[in-house]
């Protein structure tokens, strides 16, 4: 369910707000520098969403969103757009899986790409997203990688296992 919600949300946000249609699955060999944004969310489930994008694609996406020339954009503007993109994808995913409950989104932050789950190359070549129970109270991450104009975007959703949520609530 979360897999489908993530895929649908990425497509809808890119097409509706950024006027971008994804080109398909990314190629395996990626070597470009990347930017990463991360935000936490609380609800049922709680967890973290990480969005990573190649630098060239990030500049292109920001230009589309702001209606400005790529070369005129500052790093601050590109970061603002990536934060907003992550925020919209996360909100869209959670609205699809939590239609009757309220969730809370944290503030998206730019992070070092290494803070995401693995390199973009690993994520992009990982094939279809998968979900299974992992260790340490977290499920295995759900990863969705898409090729867009001028690069690749990878979105990773890491959720906490329900039993962990219960244990944490009891601890407080």
């Amino acid at each position, binding site marked *: 369910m979360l897999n489908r919600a993530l895929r649908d949300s990425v497509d809808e946000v890119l097409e509706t*707000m950024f006027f971008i249609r994804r080109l398909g699955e990314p190629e395996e060999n990626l070597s470009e520098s990347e930017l990463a944004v991360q935000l936490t969310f609380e609800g049922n489930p709680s967890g973290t969403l990480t969005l990573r994008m190649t630098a060239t694609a990030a500049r292109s996406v920001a230009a589309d969103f702001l209606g400005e020339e790529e070369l005129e954009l500052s790093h601050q503007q590109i970061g603002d757009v990536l934060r*907003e993109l992550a925020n919209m994808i996360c909100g869209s995913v959670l609205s699809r899986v939590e239609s009757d409950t*309220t969730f809370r989104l944290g503030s998206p932050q730019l992070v070092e790409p290494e803070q995401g789950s693995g390199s973009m190359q690993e994520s992009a070549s990982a094939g279809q997203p998968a979900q299974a129970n992992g260790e340490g109270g977290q499920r295995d991450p759900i990863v969705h990688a898409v090729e867009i104009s001028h690069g690749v975007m990878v979105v990773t959703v890491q959720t906490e296992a329900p039993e962990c949520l219960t244990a944490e609530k009891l601890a407080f």
Partner: protein
Amino acid sequence: MAYRVLVVDDSPAMRSFVRRVIELSGFALSTCFEAANGQEALDVLRNEWVDAILTDINMPVVDGEEFLRRLAADELLRSIPAIVISTDATQNRIARLLSLGARGYVTKPFLPEVLRAELEKTLGVPCD
């Protein structure tokens, strides 16, 4: 008739996008004011009259819910219609914000014509 609109969002990118979308949609916009949170918005409203407010929910200092409460408590400002723009499409959230005084709700992502339609409906703009 052209309208004066206040956009309240802590994301400069989102404020810029909303302004551009309003213009591109063909909505009759005369002036677009901006504020980064509810407190800044109240400061703007002390000096400028607007016809409608478009506000985010999750913002620092004064968030969208508190902003709606303060608008509703202000005799001069309570008549200005506020439309919430948010990523949160859950029914509980929408119902709560409408109960706080929001006159409309637009979920991100949205098409330009959806935002225009919500603005025109809220303002009672006659159809073309």
